[in-house]
Structure formats: C-alpha cells, structure tokens
C-alpha cells in the first residue's frame, strides 16, 4: 500500500515538473517583459489540415479543413481580445482582394514555413535566444497591415483507423493514433523575430481532443484547444512597448540629408 502511495506521489511530481518544463508559451525575454509584446496584431489566414489515415491511404478532408481553420481563427481572435490586444484575423478573401497584400502574404508564409520546420527540429526553447528571424518580408507585411506584429496559427488533426495504427506501430512510420497538433506564433514587425510561440504543453498535447471529439463539436472543441494553447498569453502592455511614432519619416530623411551635407 505504502509503495502504491509513494508511486502515486512520484508520478504526480513528475507530471507537475514535466508540465512546468514544457510550458505552453516559449517567448523572448523582451516579450515576457512587454517591450516587444504587440499592441496590435494581424493573423494571416489560419491553416488547418484534417487527415484521415487508413490502412492503405490517407484521405485529406480539404473542404472540412477550411471550416476548422475558421474556428481556429475565431478562437485565436477571442483569446487575444480577452487579453486586451487589438487583433484581427485575415480571411483568404481579404488577401486575394489585394494583389500587393497577396504577394506579401505568400512571401511571409513561405518564410514562416521555413522557420517553423527549424523550430520543430531544434525545439521551441531556442525562441528565447532569438534564433528565428524572418527578415524584411515580415517587417514589410506588418507595415502594410499597420500592426505591431504578424501572427500565424495552425492546427493539424490526424485520425487513424485501427488497421493503420497497427501498421504504424509495426513499421515505426507515422503516428499511431488520433492526434491533434496546434501552434500559434507572434512575429514582431520590427525585430522580425518569433517573439512568442504557443503550443499545448507536452503532457496535454494530442490528448486534448482526438479526431472524433473534434468532429462531434468542431467549434467548441477547437475553442477549447485554442484556449489551452494560449493559456499563458500575457495581457497587452501598451506602456512597455516603445514607440517612435512621434517622429515622422520626413524628419528622419531631412536629418540624414543634413548630416550628409556636412
């Protein structure tokens, strides 16, 4: 009996420390302190993938994925609004209506995809070290959108048939069961770094909602997942973020011209 109690205590301690070590938010120090925390943020159209893995094929639910992306966008918008941010989520139609914006969004999305691969390979903890810099593409996009930061949100839902699970286990390829991956990034329009990256903590990842649960109540379940992912999002801190808005572009140009004349 004593052994069982000790085992339970040890397991609880392990779970607690594990959850702490795998926080939902990975952020730079400046974001945590407020200096690079945005007041306004625009999310590019959220991405959703819904993949049914069967024994001999995978079946992509493209139309259904669009619906999930909308729910993800709504969840992200609600979570940021609740913390006082000025947030908007771009719809695909917003992007396609403006050719210049379309180009910028495509460039920024490719750049983000490149970074996300590295984030996933090299652990999100490296975000604190400002390892992931998205270049001028993100600065120009933030400027065009008139926001402090650009956001990305993504959800992947995998459903596996029992047979597919067995084959996956046998061969070691792919994930065995139903799982859900979600991530949200905040990229600053000035530093162009990923300032904050949110994923559900490891202990809860994939177990929050499987394919069946999401399909039974997509709006409710995705809202719940998004809330869990963004649980550590701090409140907006307008005072902490420095602003150089008082100085116009023309002032800067004139100053430089004067300096060059000397």
């Amino acid at each position, binding site marked *: 009996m004593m052994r069982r109690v000790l085992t339970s205590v040890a397991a609880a301690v392990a779970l607690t420390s594990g959850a702490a070590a795998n926080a939902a938010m990975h952020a730079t120090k400046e974001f945590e302190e407020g200096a690079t925390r945005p007041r306004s943020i625009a999310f590019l*159209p959220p991405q959703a993938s819904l993949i049914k893995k069967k024994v001999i094929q*995978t079946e992509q639910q493209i139309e259904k994925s669009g619906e999930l992306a909308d729910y993800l966008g709504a969840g992200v918008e609600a979570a940021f609004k609740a913390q006082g941010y000025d947030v908007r989520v771009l719809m695909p139609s917003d992007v396609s209506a403006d050719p210049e914006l379309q180009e910028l969004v495509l460039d920024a999305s490719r750049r983000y995809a490149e970074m996300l691969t590295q984030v996933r390979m090299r652990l999100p903890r490296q975000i604190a070290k400002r*390892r992931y810099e998205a270049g001028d593409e993100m600065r120009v996009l933030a*400027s*065009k959108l008139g926001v402090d930061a650009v956001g990305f949100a993504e959800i992947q839902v995998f459903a596996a048939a029992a047979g597919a699970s067995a*084959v996956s286990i*046998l*061969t070691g390829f792919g994930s065995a069961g139903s799982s859900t991956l979600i991530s949200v990034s905040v990229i600053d329009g000035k530093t162009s770094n990923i300032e904050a990256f949110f994923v559900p903590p490891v202990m809860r990842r994939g177990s929050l909602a499987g394919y069946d649960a999401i399909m039974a109540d997509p709006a409710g379940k995705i809202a719940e997942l998004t809330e869990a992912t963004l649980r550590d999002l701090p409140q907006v801190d307008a005072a902490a973020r420095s602003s150089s808005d008082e100085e116009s*572009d023309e002032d800067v140009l004139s100053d*430089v011209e004067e300096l060059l004349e000397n």
Partner: protein
Amino acid sequence: MTRKAPIRLPVRLLATAALVSLVAGASAEGVYEPVPLKDKEHRLIEESQELNGYFARQSLLYTDPRVVGLVESVGRSLAPPPTDDYIDYRFFVLRDPSPNAFALPNGDIYMHTGMLARLTDTAQLAAILAHEINHVAGHHSIVNFRSANKKIVASMVLTGVFGGIGSIISTGLSASMYGFSRELEQEADDHAVPLMIASPYDAHALPEIYDILARDYEGITPRIPTIWSTHPQLEARAARTREQVAGAPSGRRDTAEFDDVVYSVRTMTIRDYIQDDYPRTAVALATSLAARYPEQPEPLQLTGDAWSAMGPLTEIDEEELSNRERMRNANRRLSRTRQERAAQLLETPEGQAALRANLGRAREAYERALILDANYAPAHRGLGEVAEKLDEPRAAAAAYVEYLRKAPDAGDRAVVVARLRTLRDRLRTEETSNDATSTD
C-alpha cells in the same frame, strides 16, 4: 512474472523492407481507353476538385491572364478528347518557385511559376504539358491508386514528410504531384513524343527540358524531390528522348512571344528565390534575364539583388559535387538558420573574400542599371544595402535617401526609414567624434 517483449527495431525494419520489396516488384501500365471509377476512386476526383478551391483560397493560383492564356492555349492544342466524363482538361499556373508541373486525375494540370521561369520558349512549355497530359490520358493516378502495395508504403512514408502543399494532399494524389513510378513516368515521356511531333511545336524541345531541369545551382538535393527535379533520372530521360526525336522536323518555338508573356513570371521567380534563400539559382536566372534584356534596368537590379543575397557563399561547380556533399548541404539548410550559416562562413577567410567579391558584383550590377535609368529607384536601394553590408554608413544613407526620394510610396518605406534611423545615429556619433578630434 513475465514481461511483454517490445517490438524490436529489426522487426520494424524487416516489415518495412518486405513492403518496399513488394513495391519494387510492382509494375503498372497506363490505360488510354475509358476507365470506369470504382467506389473509393470517386474520392480522388472530388479531392482534385477540392484542391483547386484550396489553391484559389490560399492565393496560390497565378492569375495573370496573358500567362494563364498562353499555358491554356498550348495545353488545349495538345490535349486529346477526354475518354471519361470525369476528365475535363483545365490548365492552371501555380504560384510556386520550385520547378514542377503536375496533373490530377480529373484533368487539372498545374504548371509552377518556377517551371515557367526556367523555360526558354513555347515548344518547351508544350513538351512539359504533353508529358502531363499523358498522365491524365493514361489514367496514371487511377492506375497508381489501384496498386495497393505502393499505397501502403506511400501512406506511411509521405505523411509528415512533405511541407507546404505536400502536407495537404492525400496519398491518392501525392504521386501526381511528386512523381509516379518510373514505368509510368517513362510511359508519359514516350507518349509525349508522338504528341509533340504531331503538334506545330518543335519536338526537339522535349530533351531540352530535362537538360534545363537537371541544373542544381545550389548543390543540394531538391527541397521537395519531384519527378521533374530528381537526379540522375533527368540525364537518362534526356538521352532517351533525344534519340526518340532525332528524326523529327523542326517546329514552332515562338521565343519572342514566350519571353514577352513570361517576363513577369521570371522576375517574380528570381525574387522568390532570393527571399527563399536560393541565391545561386537567383544569380543564374537573373544573369540569364539580364543577357536577354540588356537595355532594361530591372534585370540588372535583380542580378544585383541576387549577388547581394549570396553573402559569404562561394560559387560552386555542380559537376564536382558528390551526392554526399549535396545531402550535407541540404541537411545544413534544415538544421541551421540562414543567419547561422552565414555567420559560420564569415569566420573563414574564404567566406570573407566571397562576401566582398559578391557585394562588388552586386554594386556593379546596380551601377549598370542606373546608367540605363538614373531614376530607377530599386537600384539605389540595392546600393544602400551593399554599402551597409560593407560598413560604409555615409554611402548607405545617401543611397537610401535617394531611394525614398525617388520612390516615396515604396512598400518597404518603413523598413528603409528604420535603417536610416540607425544610420543617422551612427553618422551623428561620427560627427561628434570628428568635432572632438578637431577641437583637440
């Protein structure tokens, strides 16, 4: 008490090896007669239609009417009458810099912008479309889908491997985009030969496309291998089709018309390669464009941008690179960020020398662009960046100011103004320091 033995690695490997060997032994041929769909195959057609909607929603369809019109008119002139009611030949241009084209079972054929940008004339465009049309006409997606053994491995291997578009397609369509079996690809090549010979276009363009696509400017294995970008098959396919078209008469090329229509695709693709950190490819394409349009400043500016993006990278001789080196280069791209790779190269004398040489070439290209048109603003911006990288703050500030004076509504105005703020602080510090020195 007994413990269950875990599944050991050798068992997994054996299982995989067994499946792979089954696939290796599988072969299939296309069917050029009507092929009624079985139950699950209807889903392939639905997915093909959904994909088009997905591409449109994601703004991935390139919609310039002249470019799409050219691809459509060439494609329609080659396509045979559909054999089934689920096939309707439609031609699209997909906004993607990678050199690829693919056909879906419902007859939708997609040409990447990165593929168009590399072609030199309409006959080469026809050659690629002829190949893709035969994937549809031969029902290759359906044939592939019915090859169950292949599907087992593909579903396990492909899931989670591909990023971008690859991550949103199912196993049933993945072969359409990333290449069918060698037999089906060869069959599409072989059927493209009579289609090209019967067309007004020059059939000798067929082997040329493989020569063009075999170029690996970056010295890496492709980011996403496709049947249009995989070594060494391309060399073998070029040799085979060269023999097949040897006796064919010459046909239409329409080089000038093609150049005119795809100019915007070429410039966009060069910019895409620069932004995606494929600067050697960008240099090659921009240099070629500048040679085609010696009187226009934009190709020279893009050449400058491409050399500037090279940073400390050295030029490479593709022929001398081993497969191992290509793999190592590709792995480095995944494991290290752009900034880390550049910083590492800059620690070496070769990297420092390469940076100076590349920036020198960039500056020369920008200056040549300004000789053609002194008011061409993007060249001033490029000169500013070169000067900034060479630690010449006065020259950088002067070039950036010139840029913003000439292009006050530039989309990157905020970015350039931010750089000018930093340069202003630096110039002020230098001025103060100079004043102090002269007072002393």
